[in-house]
């Protein structure tokens, strides 16, 4: 789960990481009021979960409340790489002597020391580009959470990145707290780009990017309320609310599978058969009729979907329950136009096939194998498009 900058900064405050004074606003007027409170110069920043908002005009300075209100009205509602700006963060602007980069993230490639720490004296720039063009400008340390972040890790980052000595204490302290935020907050990523050394010698996190490990949500019940479902697409929101593993794509063939691997594979064979998958939807293990019905409902609410492919290999999942779920969904949804190609194998497959056969529903097209089913679903989707 990705946090917005303003949420990440709230988390930073909790862990004692210095951030500029500021507050989030969802209207130009609110932005002006915050600027009044802060006094003097402010910076108004679009709250979107995508990089490059600066270049896209999503970050602007303002020297008066009126100006803040005016730039906020320009930024709010902007579309930045497909993300609509619904909020701006209004912060006190400070004097900046130099800018650095630092992050901690979970690194699957080094499983014995799975927390990767990075720092660079190049701050405020696209770090992926720095990594590609000047890899030596980024210092890296791998930390085992069993051992924890130790002074030598911090030294390796400070010296390795070439952080100037005057900033060692401030940056070192930020690194410690960022690490603490990652491990205590179950972060998958805690990134500050840039952190600034100010004229008065303080080091402050100007930006904040935090992603939380969804699996650890149970340890952080307070984070649940931060999830901004409004940022999600309509179908994604509905899927999320029903606890489905759903990813929206752009095509015409809706797809339901059981198990992440089989579902991905189903998308691939649909693409190979010349179709375009409309989504990824894994009903998981042990799905029942209700899950199936919800899933079909979510997918068919996408108008672009011309056909639906249900590809089930029953293990824990029972094919008879899947078949019942399909019928229930058709009943609940009423006026369904899209044909549903169904391939059932594994646990109780015969019972499932029989249920569908007996129902003899006009929308249901049984298919004997995964490849046949994919071909059929693609053919039907194309037919309905014309």
């Amino acid at each position, binding site marked *: 789960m990705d946090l917005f900058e303003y949420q990440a900064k709230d988390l930073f405050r909790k862990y004692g990481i210095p951030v500029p004074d500021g507050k989030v606003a969802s209207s130009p007027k609110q932005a002006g009021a915050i600027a009044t409170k802060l006094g003097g110069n402010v910076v108004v920043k679009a709250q979107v979960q995508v990089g490059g908002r600066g270049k896209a005009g999503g970050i602007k300075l303002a020297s008066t409340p009126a100006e803040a209100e005016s730039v906020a009205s320009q930024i709010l509602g902007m579309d930045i790489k497909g993300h609509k700006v619904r909020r701006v963060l209004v912060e006190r602007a400070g004097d900046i002597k130099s800018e650095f980069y630092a992050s901690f993230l*979970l690194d*699957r*490639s080094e*499983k*014995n*020391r*799975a*927390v990767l720490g990075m720092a660079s004296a190049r701050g405020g720039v696209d770090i*992926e580009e720095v990594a590609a063009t000047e890899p030596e400008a980024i210092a890296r340390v791998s930390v*085992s*959470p*069993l051992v924890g972040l130790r002074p030598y890790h911090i030294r390796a980052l400070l010296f390795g990145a070439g952080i100037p000595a005057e900033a060692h204490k401030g940056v070192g302290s930020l690194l410690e707290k960022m690490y603490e935020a990652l*491990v205590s907050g*179950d972060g*998958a990523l805690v990134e500050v780009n840039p952190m600034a050394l100010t004229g008065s010698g303080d080091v402050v996190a100007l930006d904040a990017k935090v992603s939380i*490990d*969804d*699996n*650890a949500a*149970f*340890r952080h019940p307070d984070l649940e309320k931060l999830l901004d479902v409004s940022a999600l697409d309509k179908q994604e929101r509905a899927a999320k609310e029903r606890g489905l*593993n759903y*990813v929206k*794509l752009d095509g015409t063939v809706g797809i339901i*599978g*059981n*198990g*992440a*691997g*089989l*579902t*991905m*594979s189903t*998308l*691939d*064979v*649909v*693409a*190979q058969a010349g179709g375009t*998958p409309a989504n*990824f939807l*894994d009903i*998981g*293990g042990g799905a029942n009729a209700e899950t199936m019905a919800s899933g079909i409902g979510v997918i068919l609410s996408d108008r672009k979907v011309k056909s639906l492919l249900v590809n089930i*290999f*029953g*293990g*824990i*999942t029972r094919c008879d329950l899947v078949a019942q779920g399909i019928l229930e969904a058709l009943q609940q949804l009423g006026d369904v136009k899209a044909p549903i190609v169904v391939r059932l*194998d*594994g*646990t109780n497959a015969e019972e499932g096939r029989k249920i569908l056969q007996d129902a003899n529903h006009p929308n249901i097209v049984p298919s004997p*194998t*995964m*490849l046949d089913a994919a071909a059929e679903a693609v053919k039907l989707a194309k037919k309905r498009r014309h």
Partner: protein
Amino acid sequence: MSILLNEETKVVVQGITGSEGTFHTRRNVAYGTNVVAGVTPGKGGQKWDDSVPVYDTVDEAVREVGANASLIFVPARFAADAIFEAADAGVGLIVCITEGIPVLDMARVYPYVQSRGITLIGPNCPGLISPGKANMGIIPGEITGPGPIGLVSRSGTLTYQVMYEMWTRGVGQSTCIGIGGDPIVGTNFIDVLGRFAEDPETKAVVLIGEIGGDDEERAASFAKENVDKPIVAYVAGFTAPEGKRMGHAGAIVSGSKGTAAAKAEAFESMGFRVGRSPTETALFAIEAVR
């Protein structure tokens, strides 16, 4: 022969009295797996299904009935603790089915288990089966049978699909291992390939990968150097968009890293065949052993 698991493996099931634990343990027992004990704290002294002794701790199960492998079905928030417990009790093989364990928990478990020389399969995996001998986990036993093909996969149902496609064509497996779809899993492709390489009964290996990380790429390089048997690979997720998690916590393309195309290319460049679909993968594997 088979690897890691056979009819003599003495299995203790952690979380045996839970609903998942009970359901799958019954299936494993019915398959012939030698389940010698269960563990549920506070239920020590009971008999599960009137036959399997339940202990309060894994340590007791090891001392009392000689369990040497543990199968874990406990809920995600308790699973890391269960793995630590099994590791300390001295079993040599731990299979953790549980899905949804926080990554940082695994980042603590992994180095500990590793340093103690224990094989951990999973978490978030279907377990492993040595067809005709024993089944530890949730792989349906009835879709496969003994044979010359070793199978290792990051996936669950996709694995069943490939097993089934082989078995319905009359070719079975030595051992099938689902290593799990999380970012940090105890056993990776390389660990399993190394074991299959040394198993005389395994004549060819099917490897089923998916997007995310670089385990497939590493496996391809490793296999080129160390495995003197045919390998057929399959990779799921060619159509996966960047930055979206495809079900598995570990199945995510980050930037240009971890794409299915790169993984398939890694195998092909090392001279291994890559199936375009589960069906083709099964057919290639059958060709390799016929």
